[in-house]
Each structure stands twice: as C-alpha cells, then as structure tokens.
C-alpha cells in the first residue's frame, strides 16, 4: 500500500532563515505531487504541483520554491523566511491529474 511521509512534524524558525521541508511517497511510481499551505486552521492553498521529476508548476508567486529531485521526493524550500510563511504545510500525492489526492501528516511551521 502507499504511504506518504513528511518531516519535520514541527519547526520553529527565525525570520530570514532558510527552510527545507521534505515529502516522500512509498508504494507508487511517478505520482503527481502537491504542496499546500493551510493558514489559520482553515483554507487550503495550493502552492506547487509536480507531474514528474524536475517538473514544477507554481500556483502562487511568493517566497517559496519547490523541487522534485527524485520520482517520489518533493521538497519545499525558502532562502529567507518571512513571518507570513507560518502555517501548516501539507504534501499530497495522486495517481493522475483528476484522481484522489492523499495527504501526508503535515508540518507545522512557526516563523518568529
């Protein structure tokens, strides 16, 4: 069966510091991968998605970037964090573009 991992689970970072969040999927090949941010415990915002290695689509211009160095690995990065980057970051995967998305456990990021 397929599983999705995210780490770290929680992170507290100072403003201006770099960021690297990692997501990996097991049990499937060539998944579509997604990064979402959830602010204030409610609305989900799609940040990036990827349909293959090295293929990244950005949905919202911002302080973040994403990379997919391996088939089942998706990384969310920032060179300098802002206070507004605080939130709950969720990774998800699907088989195809309109298939069910399955979510990871999330990373709680607090920028101080």
């Amino acid at each position, binding site marked *: 069966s397929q599983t999705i991992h995210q780490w770290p689970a929680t992170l507290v970072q100072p403003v201006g510091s770099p960021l690297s969040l990692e997501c990996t999927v097991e049990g499937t090949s060539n998944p579509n991968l997604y990064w979402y941010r959830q602010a204030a415990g*409610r609305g*989900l915002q*799609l940040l990036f998605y990827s349909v293959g290695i090295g293929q990244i689509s950005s949905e919202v211009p911002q302080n973040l970037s994403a990379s997919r160095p391996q088939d089942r690995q998706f990384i969310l990065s920032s060179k300098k964090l802002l206070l507004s980057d605080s939130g709950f970051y969720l990774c998800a995967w699907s088989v*195809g573009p*309109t298939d069910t*998305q399955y*979510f*990871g456990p999330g990373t709680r990021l607090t920028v101080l």
Partner: protein
Amino acid sequence: AQSVAQPEDQVNVAEGNPLTVKCTYSVSGNPYLFWYVQYPNRGLQFLLKYITGDNLVKGSYGFEAEFNKSQTSFHLKKPSALVSDSALYFCALYTGGGNKLTFGTGTQLKVEL
C-alpha cells in the same frame, strides 16, 4: 469561474442524530467532487468522491454524499453521528482540467452527547 462553497462555518449535532454538512459547487463541464475530514494538527483524510454514476456515493466511516446536479450540491451525510465525528470537513472540486483541487472553506462539525 469554477468554485466550491461550504455555507456553514460550524454544524452542531447531538450524538445519534443524523448529520448533514453542506457543499455547493459551480463548474463548467462535469464536476469531480470530493469530501475530506481533518482532525486537529493532522493531514486531510479522504472520505469519498463523485466522478460519475450513482448520485448517492458511499464512503468511509459510514459517511455518504448525495450529488444533485439541478441544485449543484454535494452534501455530506451520516445517519447517526458519533462524538468521534467531530472534526473539520472540506468539500473539494477539481478545476482547470485537473491537478488543481479547489477546497471549500471548511465546516467544523461538533457532535455532542
């Protein structure tokens, strides 16, 4: 524009009573609709989806949803609520030809004894 709306911020239900969490949508073409549940500080869990076929979709944990094309609705239902059903529920719609899952604002369900 394609969108999904959850008109209720919060729904309160007594345990054992039926529950309904409302969702309406706007889309050109055939909708791909989903329901997810989120417990505090956890990721979203998939409950059920409608792609095509029967208007009544059965999902996990005893939940079901009714697709109504004329009313453009996809309400989530359960015949008998449990306290453990208390969580945040999201309706979602694929837009833009796929890959973009647009979420509603979420409905907090509170089931009380």
